[in-house]
């Protein structure tokens, strides 16, 4: 028996031997054992065989990784991306989809980046307020004609031309490819292949305001990495033209440097010309210099004329994908005037359309290449506004993966996926035809919204927020589903309360099963409130009432510790009976302002200090976190007073505890495990570990705990069985621990804290099991 359990323990050692992770002498020992033990020998052989197979399998991935690597490098090379901000303007065109990235042509050259960097970088520097005006003026321009001339390393000249006319005309000439878009149609001309192709305009999906020329500032927000110096040159400037010098030096993050000049119209503050020259070492494909000329004359519509040049082949028009189908009632009859809502999983795509007399509908998808893909799964709902208890709905999912394990999508399952003819590219929907939506009974959530006195609030907004898969106790689970657009009718699924404060969210799919559903109510002048309920099965009607507090209290204050040190970036919230309403963070001085807090004498300001809210991977912040006990401060409420100043003083954990552990005969107990505990969730685990709130007494039976917080229920725990979890012990210590196991009983010693005392001496007496029983008997 014993032998077998030992071999069980050897399993890990054998694995580490196979993986070569075992130290030589241990390996020798184990090998000897394997020679003699059949069980281990068997395991060793099997693992060794497997290892070969595993390594071969991973090798196939590594090979594949190499090909991707090369592809990726090629891609970067093509676009001349360097590790600096220069990449950004290129990158934003890819709009996050690597599929599109793969298709990017060589349209973006580095010098364009140079010029854009000039426009952008400086706007972020405080010292260059004059240049900031240039940026502002440029972003408001109506017409712009932009010619860019780049002199490349090999002496060739690249020329790009852009015409932009608000509100929605665009002409982009990147040499090989020309894009023309007039708000209605789009024409793409490939000058090398001599082809032209029409498609629907991109403008409804990517308006001109989002063109990178205008949009670039957003990209660089918060990243003033381009430290460009700009100065007005008084000698060269005159009344009509201002001349700026531009300079960017190499710095530690970027080996890219340039200098140049910009000519700006003094009246309009619009840039007229920018000339920049590379001063850092030139690399392949990097332009030696670039010149951009701007023109703001009104642009003739002829520029945006949709004409296929002579000798070019016109390709068939690029069609957009659609979702089409029919809405039927329970008797298989078409439903006219039903509104079909289509929303995708990411919540970016949302369309609604009404069915015709045959119950048919067609929803057009955004054109391919615009960078706004429709992600599967897509939820389709159809209902008639006047019929609140019926809904037809379905979900379009990737045909190959509609029941993906752990998809988290299904709130309890039973989702109709029976949709025909889905074309998709992975998780991106291309088209779906022949959809049939059948009417079925719908669920509803309803209730009343009242204020603190019980008076109904009319015209309050109520909406479904979220639906989380829950465990059987109703605790919300990992996957949440954004369902705010699910209920209807009304804009975004928001309904308003009537004169009696009543609301009803109708036409809900009855799919809830083991889900936690969150509903939020908001009304003007009141503090919004989120309530939730747990649905065990499909809901027909669920009642959910809200009691809203009037908003208006402004609480300001500072959060410091008892040594006057401000506590920075800690969460402060306004709470009523533990429920949080408003939340904010303290600033760098520990100051905070909570606006529009509920008006009530129950209002409490709560500082969440005991929990390290930084995730461990934000190493520095996570590690510099100092634990304090949570702090709750009530306000000195007076009727009609809306402003309160709150002083919050957190107590630095600084108590010291000297512990001596004895047994009843007065003998000091060495290496006896003791622990500091408090009421649940009062002391953070991180702090407990850091400050070693679980430790053993020294050889004299003494130990000292420091940095103990003043919290409720502070007590000393004697671990009588002489064992602690996760303890690393030497062999000798292990023997000692085993010898002394289960001699003493578990004991708790409450610690009484006095306001003026910092250091406490405690003598804890450990009782043996017999003594404990005796004591208990005598108490009886």
């Amino acid at each position, binding site marked *: 028996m014993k032998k077998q359990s030992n071999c069980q323990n050897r399993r890990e050692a054998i694995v580490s031997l196979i993986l070569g992770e075992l130290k030589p002498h241990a390996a020798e020992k184990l090998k000897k054992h394997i020679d003699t033990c059949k069980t281990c020998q068997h395991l060793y052989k099997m693992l060794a065989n*497997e290892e070969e197979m595993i390594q*071969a399998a991973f090798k196939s991935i590594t090979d594949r990784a190499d090909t*991707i690597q090369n592809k990726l490098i090629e891609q970067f090379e093509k676009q001349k991306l360097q590790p600096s901000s220069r990449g950004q303007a290129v990158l934003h065109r890819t709009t996050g989809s690597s599929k599109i990235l793969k298709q990017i042509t060589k349209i973006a050259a580095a010098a364009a980046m140079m010029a854009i960097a000039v426009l952008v970088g400086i706007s972020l520097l405080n010292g260059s307020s004059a240049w900031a005006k240039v940026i502002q003026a440029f972003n408001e321009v109506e017409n712009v004609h932009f010619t860019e001339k780049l002199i490349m390393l090999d002496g060739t000249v690249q020329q790009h031309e852009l015409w932009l006319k608000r509100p929605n005309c665009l002409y982009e000439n990147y040499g090989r490819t020309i894009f023309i878009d007039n708000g209605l149609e789009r024409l793409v001309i490939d000058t090398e292949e001599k082809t032209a192709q029409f498609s629907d305009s991109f403008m409804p999906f990517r308006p001109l305001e989002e063109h990178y020329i205008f949009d670039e500032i957003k990209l660089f927000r918060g990243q003033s990495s381009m430290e460009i110096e700009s100065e007005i040159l008084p000698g060269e400037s005159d009344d009509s033209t201002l001349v700026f010098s531009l300079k960017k030096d190499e710095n530690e993050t970027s080996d890219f440097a340039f200098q140049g000049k910009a000519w700006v119209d003094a009246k309009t503050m619009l840039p007229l010309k920018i000339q920049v020259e590379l001063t850092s070492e030139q690399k392949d494909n990097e332009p030696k210099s670039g010149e951009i000329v701007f023109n703001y004359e009104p642009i003739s519509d002829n520029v945006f004329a949709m004409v296929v040049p002579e000798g070019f082949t016109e390709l068939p028009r690029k069609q957009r994908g659609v979702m089409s189908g029919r809405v039927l009632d329970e008797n298989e009859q078409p439903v006219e005037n039903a509104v079909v809502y289509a929303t995708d999983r990411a919540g970016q795509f949302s369309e609604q359309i009404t069915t015709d007399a045959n119950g048919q509908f067609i929803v057009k998808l955004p054109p391919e290449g615009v960078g706004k893909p429709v992600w599967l799964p897509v939820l389709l709902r159809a209902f008639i506004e006047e019929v609140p208890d019926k809904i037809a709905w379905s979900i379009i999912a990737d045909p190959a993966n509609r029941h993906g*394990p752990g998809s988290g999508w299904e709130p309890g399952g039973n989702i109709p996926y029976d949709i025909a003819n889905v074309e998709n590219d992975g998780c991106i929907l291309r088209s779906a035809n022949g959809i049939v939506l059948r009417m079925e009974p719908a669920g509803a959530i309803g209730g009343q919204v009242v204020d603190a006195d019980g008076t109904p609030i009319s015209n309050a907004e109520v909406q479904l927020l979220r639906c989380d898969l829950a465990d059987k106790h109703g605790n919300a689970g990992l996957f949440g589903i954004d369902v705010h657009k699910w209920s209807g009718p009304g804009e975004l699924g928001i309904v308003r309360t009537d004169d009696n404060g009543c609301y009803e969210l109708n036409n809900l799919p009855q799919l809830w099963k083991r889900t936690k559903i969150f509903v939020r109510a908001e009304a003007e002048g009141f503090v919004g409130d989120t309530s939730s309920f747990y649905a065990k099965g499909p809901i027909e009607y669920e009642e959910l009432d809200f009691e809203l507090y009037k908003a208006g209290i402004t609480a300001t204050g500072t959060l410091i510790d008892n040594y006057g040190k401000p506590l920075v970036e800690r969460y402060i919230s306004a709470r009523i009976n533990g429920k949080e309403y408003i939340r904010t963070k303290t600033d760098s001085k520990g100051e905070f302002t909570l606006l529009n807090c509920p008006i009530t004498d129950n209002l409490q300001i709560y500082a969440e200090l005991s929990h390290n809210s930084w995730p461990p991977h934000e190493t520095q912040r996570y590690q510099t976190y100092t634990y304090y006990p949570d702090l709750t401060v009530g306000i000195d409420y007076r009727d009609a007073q809306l402003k309160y100043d709150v002083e919050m003083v957190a107590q630095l954990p600084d108590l010291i505890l000297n512990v001596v552990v004895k047994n009843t005969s007065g003998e000091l107990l060495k290496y006896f495990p003791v622990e500091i505990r408090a009421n649940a969730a009062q002391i953070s685990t991180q702090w407990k570990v850091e400050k070693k709130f679980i430790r053993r007494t020294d050889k004299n039976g003494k130990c000292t705990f420091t940095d103990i917080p003043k919290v409720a229920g502070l007590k000393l725990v004697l671990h009588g069985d002489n064992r602690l979890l996760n303890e690393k012990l030497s062999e000798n210590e292990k023997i000692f621990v085993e010898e002394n196991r289960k001699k003493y009983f578990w004991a708790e010693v409450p610690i009484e804290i006095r306001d003026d005392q910092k250091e406490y001496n405690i003598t804890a007496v450990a009782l043996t099991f017999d003594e404990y029983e005796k004591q208990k008997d005598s108490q009886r």
Partner: protein
Amino acid sequence: MTEAEPEKTCESANTIGDNENLTPEMLVRKHASAVLALCMAHTKNFHDSEDIMQNVFLRAFMKFDTLRDKSRVRSWLLKIARRMCIDFHRKRTFTKTLPDDIPSPPNSTDEHIRRLHTAVSKLPDGYREPIILYYLDGRKCADVAKSLGISEDTVRSRLLRARLRLHDMLLEDQQ
């Protein structure tokens, strides 16, 4: 000595000489397999991993300036990768299982490979990351530890347990 050596190689992989000369190529070459491994651990799917990996490097280039300590490139990249994988899961929670996507080399025991990947994808998250990184990225615990920002001992113990579980699963599968 055996301890020190992997440490050293890891160090040299992390500190990219002088950052002045850091090119995309170097960044990709040095860290691609680790990033891919991590993506695989999360998505359990090759195509998605590939896409995410591309995005990770693009993102890395965009944000390169914000990285203060350039010697931490690797763990930083993996951090980005992990976030992106999480985002990916949020966006589309449908997960593909590995087998359909893994192209296996011809003449190899396809069946074995398929079984292995199925087993790996069934491992708990905490085990999957170390084991995939281990096998895809040079088979050194020290490297994996640095990449994941956890101690070498933790990596080793997780790796061993993961490997044993894998063994159990493969055995079960066979039967």
